[in-house]
């Protein structure tokens, strides 16, 4: 199996930092990601907690909404399948069913959207030991740019800053795991609610 994080054959830089996106997608989907589009986002974060603990938290998808900013709701359907409801522009939502395509205890979880997804997507989250630094968590997301007007609006949101979004989500994961809470500079409960909506 190809090393799906590094372009090991050529150099040690992660795929997510490749200048040529199409090449990176080829290499990424060569391994553990079922291809669902021509867009790729990948981000890494170091979390000062044991690998097993981070995996266990992530494996229960119902834990994720507070971390994933755009996610309204995740319904866990069974051990493999979940239903995702995600914010879209103008107060709307987009939805899809997701199925786990690979699951290695303490190591990685890979998923892909099923037919009929508003935004076809797939991805993988990996947990790697990082010695005194804890665990390096790498998220890789592959998705298709939706068509039509709504697609254009959605893609503005999902495309212009998807890297940023993924990074912010990983930062929140780190905060919750390392400190037990998600940092906020709000001063009152009301401000906090406005900020989170």
């Amino acid at each position, binding site marked *: 199996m190809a090393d799906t994080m590094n372009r090991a054959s050529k150099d040690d830089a992660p795929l997510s930092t490749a200048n040529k996106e199409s090449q990176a997608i080829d290499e990424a989907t060569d391994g553990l990601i079922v291809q669902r589009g021509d867009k790729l986002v990948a981000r890494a974060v*170091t979390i*000062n907690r044991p690998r097993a603990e981070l995996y266990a938290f992530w494996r229960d998808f119902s834990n994720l909404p507070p971390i994933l900013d755009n996610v309204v709701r995740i319904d866990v359907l069974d051990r493999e399948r979940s239903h995702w409801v995600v914010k879209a522009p103008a107060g709307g939502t987009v939805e899809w069913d997701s199925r786990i395509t690979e699951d290695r205890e303490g190591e990685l979880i890979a998923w892909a959207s099923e037919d009929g997804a508003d935004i076809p997507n797939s991805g993988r989250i990996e947990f790697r030991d990082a010695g*005194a*630094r*804890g665990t390096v968590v790498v998220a890789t997301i592959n998705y298709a740019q939706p068509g039509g007007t709504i697609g254009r609006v959605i893609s503005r949101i999902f495309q212009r800053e998807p890297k*940023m979004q993924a*990074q*912010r*989500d990983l*930062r*929140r994961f*780190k*905060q919750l795991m*390392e*400190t*037990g*809470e*998600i*940092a*906020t*500079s*709000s*001063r*009152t*409960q*009301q401000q*906090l609610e406005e900020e989170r909506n």
Partner: protein
Amino acid sequence: MRALTWHGKHDVRVDSVPDPEILNPRDAIIKITSTAICGSDLHLYDGYIPTMMAGDILGHEFMGEVVETGARSTLKKGQRVVVPFTIACGSCYHCGKHQYSGCENGLPADNQDIGQELYGQPMAGLFGYSHLTGGYAGGQAEYVRVPFSDVGPIVIPDGIEDEKVLFLSDILPTGWMAAENAEIEPGDIVAVWGCGPVGLFAVQSAFLMGAERVIAIDHFPRRLELARRFGAETINFEETDTAAALFEMTGGIGPDAVIDSVGLEAHGFFVDNVLDQIKKSTFLGTDRIHSIRQAILACRKGGRVSMPAVYGGFVDKFPLGALMEKGLTLKTGQTHVQHYMPALLNAIMEGKIDTTFLISHTLPLEQAPQGYKMFHDNQNEVTKVVLKPGMALAAE
């Protein structure tokens, strides 16, 4: 509650705003008993720091009484605490190395983008210091919400007045870390630019760490006099060619270590400084750097440059060649306050460090705007303004 809020350049006001609430399990709410205006606050007052929003509550040097605690706070109601200006979680990689101002979890996730873009990595969260550092409400108010209250605030034993310990929040550890970063050896000559609170604490700390001579530089006679009180020799840069004086005063060798505690707003009509100002207003450069430039040129070969002074952006004409050719070491950073607090509290209790000398004015919180104006306009007389929410208004 009442709070000092920012509304624009040279426009700060005391407004009524909703009281802070516990939002996270490790939070505590502190009722402020004393809070100070810092030299760094003047950067906000002068409009040098981007990402400020009207209504932001200022203040990062404060202390008070614990009035409310979250489920995971280790503080108890009624305890008196001094709060570090850096918001640090105590459990990330950086906190583990006691590099608290590098904490990765103090800044809300969405506020981390700017720092990452500007500096390559997000910065730490700070109280009352723009949205670049998190947009946290500061302590120049009646109450403040303090995150990570189980690791940051230090509990003050009864019987020690606020004035003695308030500066543990920032400037005392900052002056101390500045001297520590200068890696002082017994017998060293240390030169300190700027005799504001940070410089004056750096002078005291340098002597405590074994410096034989400390040479302090400023242009305010009153501040220079305070430096002399701690045994420093002084240079008034308005009356003297500082570079030449340092060369002669050290017999041509130069100081072993130099400390820049001036920063962004370096005063004075030096040619390069005026040039920096012109460039700043035409967006060619964002920081004026006369003091750091002069410090590097004055430092002896193989010496150490310590830079507690705050810089934010890119600088022009930075003497990189001198740094390299002379083999200098440069150390800097926002202060790791949590790391220094316990030892410095002990030093205060043992009478080894004096802090009260610095306070020139104490005002009620309601008069904070006057405090800012005074501190801004008359730095010679006004060395430190302490605000007290509970204090009665002086008859006018």
